[in-house]
C-alpha cells in the first residue's frame, strides 16, 4: 500500500496551493475556491490517517469538514452577491471600508 507520507506530502502541497490562491487571486470567488482546496487538502490528510490507523474517524471528521465547507460556501457566496451588488466588482481589495 502507499505509505502515509506520500498522502501527507500531497496534502501539504495542495494546502500550500490553496494559500497561494488566496493571496494571488484578485477575485473573491476564486479566493473562496482556494479555501475549498485547502479544506480538501486537510480532508485528504484525515482520511489517510484514518486509513493508516485503520479507524473510520478520519471519514467522520471529513464528513464534518464537508458540512462546514458547505455552510461556509453558502454564506461566503451570499456575501459575494451582496458586495457585488454595491460595488459592481469582485476585487477583494476594493472592499476595504470597515463601516458602510
Amino acid at each position: 500500500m502507499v505509505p502515509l507520507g506520500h498522502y501527507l506530502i500531497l496534502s501539504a502541497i495542495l494546502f500550500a496551493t490553496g494559500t497561494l490562491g488566496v493571496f494571488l487571486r484578485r477575485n473573491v470567488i476564486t479566493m473562496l475556491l482556494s479555501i475549498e482546496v485547502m479544506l480538501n487538502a486537510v480532508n485528504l490528510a484525515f482520511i489517510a490517517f484514518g486509513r493508516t490507523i485503520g479507524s473510520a474517524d478520519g471519514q467522520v471528521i471529513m464528513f464534518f469538514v464537508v458540512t462546514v465547507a458547505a455552510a461556509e460556501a453558502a454564506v461566503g457566496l451570499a456575501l459575494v452577491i451582496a458586495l457585488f451588488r454595491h460595488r459592481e466588482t469582485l476585487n477583494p481589495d476594493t472592499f476595504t471600508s470597515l463601516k458602510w
Partner: protein
Amino acid sequence: MLRFIPLLPFVGFLINWSLGRRLSRAAAGRVACLAMAGAFAVSAWSVWQLLQLPPEARGIRDLVMPWVESGALSIPLEFRLDPLGAVMILVVSGIGFLIHVYSTAYMHDERPSEFARYFSYLNLFAAFMLVLVLGANFPVMFVGWEGVGLCSYLLIGFWFTKKSASDAGKKAFIVNRIGDFGFLLGMFFVWSQFGTFDFQGVARAAGQLPPEAAFGVLSLATLLLFVGATGKSAQIPLYVWLPDAMEGPTPVSALIHAATMVTAGVYMIGRNAVLFGHAPETLGIVAGIGVATALMAGTIGLVQNDIKRVLAYSTVSQLGLMFVAMGVGAFAAGIFHLYTHAFFKALLFLGSGAVIHALHGEQDIRKMGGLRKELPITYWTFLIGSLAIAGVPLLSGFFSKDEILWKAFSGGHTTVWAVSAVASLLTAIYMFRLVFLTFHGSRANADANHDHAVAPDDHGAKAGHGAAGGGGHLHDAPPAMATALILLAIGSVLAGYVGVPAVIGGSNRIEQFLEPSFAVPGVEAAAGHAEAVAHDGEAVAAHAAGGEAAQVHGDEGAAAGADHGMELKLMAFSSGLAVAGIAIAALFFLAWRRVTDRIASAFSLVHRLLLNKYYVDEIYGFVIVRPIHWISERVLWKVVDAGLIDGTVNGAGASIAGWSDVLRRLQTGSVRAYALSIFVGVVVILGYYVWR
C-alpha cells in the same frame, strides 16, 4: 421605646422637608411642634420608667439593630437611657418644644416654604441631638454629633442670601470639623485601647486601670476627645464660631447655640466621666481651658453692643464654667449647671428675640433703651433670666454655679476658683449692662433705628414691618412667644431646686440621681472611691476615681463639719459677687453713662482690644486662613490640580488617541492583509515546532 424619641422629630423633618412647600405656615408649625411634643412625652414616660428602677440599676437599653459587624468590631445601633441621658433628653425635648412654639410666632414673617424649611431643620436638629444623648456607644453618638453640626450649619446660614449669614454658617461648620477630627481620633484611640466602643464597656475597662500619674494613653485619648468638645462647645481655641453663629434666627441661637448643642461637649465628658477621671492631666487641661474661656468671654461680653453677641459670649463663658466643673471632677455639678443654664439662657435668647422682633431686627443695644414699658412681659422674663444667670440666690443659676465654685474650691483648685469667681462677677455685670441699656433709661434716637434696621439685612418681613414699626408704639411678644417666655422663666426660677446643696437643708437630689452615670457601671461607687483613696490622698486622683465618689467624699467632709462653714461662707461670697456685679452695672450703665464713656476712652486700648475680641479672628485669619488660601491657590490649584491631575487625565486621553492613530493602521479592511497576518502566525508556530 427609646428609638421613638429621636424618630418622632425625624418624621416631622421628613414631612416638612418633603411636602413642606405645599403646607401652610400653620400646618408646618403644627407638625413640627407636635413632633417635639411627642418626643417630649415619650422622653418623660421613659424617664418615669427609669425612675421606677432601683438607683443602682437605672438604665434602659433599646437595641435597634446590629449596625456594623466586622470581626472584632461590633457596633450595634443602640440607645441607652441612664440618669445623665434622662436629664439631657428632658432638657432637649422640653426646651426644644418650647422653642418650637416660640418659633411659630417669631418666624411668622417668612414665606411658607421658608417657614417649612426652617422647621424641618429644627426637627432634624432635635432628632440628631436626641440620638447624640441617647447613643449607647461612640459611633452612634458621633452620628448625632455630626448631625447637629450639620443642622447648626444649615440654620446659621438659614438666611443664606445674606453673605454674613452664609459665611458664619461655613465658619461654624469648618471649625466644628476641626473639633470633630479630634473627636474621631479620640474615638479610634479609645477603640485601639479598649477594643470596644460601648460607653459602659469603655468605662469598665478604664475602671480597671489605675489613674495615670503622668501623661499617658488615657490622657491622650481624653485630650483628643476634649478637642472635639472644644469644637462643639465653643471653648478656646475653637470658640470663634459661636458669636458669629448669632447670624441665625434667634430661636435657633436659643436652642442650638445656648441650650443644647453647645453643651454636647460637656455632656460627652460627663458621659465618659470614668475615662476622664482616670486622666488627671486632661482634667487639669480641661479646667484650665474652661476657666480661661470663661474669663475671656466674660471680658469680651462686657463691651459688645450687639444684644445677641453679648448673650453668645455669656454662653461661652458659662460653658467655660461647666468645663471647669468637669475639670475639677465635679461632673454632677457641671451637668447641673448645664441643666439650669439651658433654662435661663434659652429664656434670655428668646427674650432678646422678642426685643429684636419688636424692633424689627434692631440688635444694637445702644439704639435701645426704655423698653421696660413697651415690652413688660419680655422685660420681666428677661430680668428673671438675668438674675438667674447672675447667680442671685434662690434662683436656679445660683445653686448650680455655686456648686461649681464650691467644688473647685473644695477640690483645692484655688486659682481656678478665684478666676471662676471673677468670671461670674463679670457675668453679673455684663448681663445687667444688657438689661439696663435695653430696657431702662430712655430710648436713644428711636427713629434712627429702623433705617438702620432696614439697611443691614434683607430678610423677609423686616421692610414691611419697619414701615409699621416706626418710632411709635411697639407691641409686646405675641402669645406664642409669651407662653414660651413665661414657662421658661418659671423654669429658670425653679429648676435649681432639684439640686439644693446639703448645707442649706437640701439634699442634693440631682447629684445622687446622676451618681450612677459617672461611676464605673456595675462596680459600686464607694468601692471605686475607696480604691482611689487607697491610691493617694491627692484630691484630683480622688475625683479621678469617679467624680461622684469624690463628691461623696466631699459630702462626708462636709458632714464632718470642718469645711461646712467654709461652704456657707463661699456661698455668701458668691451671692455677694452677684449683687456686686448688678450694683456695678447699675452704677456705670444707669447712673454715670458719661463716666463709663470717659473710662472707655481713657482705656481706649483695652476697650478696643475687648471690642475686637482680642483680635482672635484676625490672628486666626493671619495664621491659619491666609496660609491655607495661599497654599490652596498656589500649590493645590495651580500645580496639583491644573498641572498634575488635569495633566494626567488629559495625558491619558491624548496618549490613547495617539496610540489608536498608530494601531488604526493595522485595521486595513483588506481581507488579504488579515489572511496574511493569520498565515504569518501559522508559519511561525509551525516553524517553531519544525526547528525545535
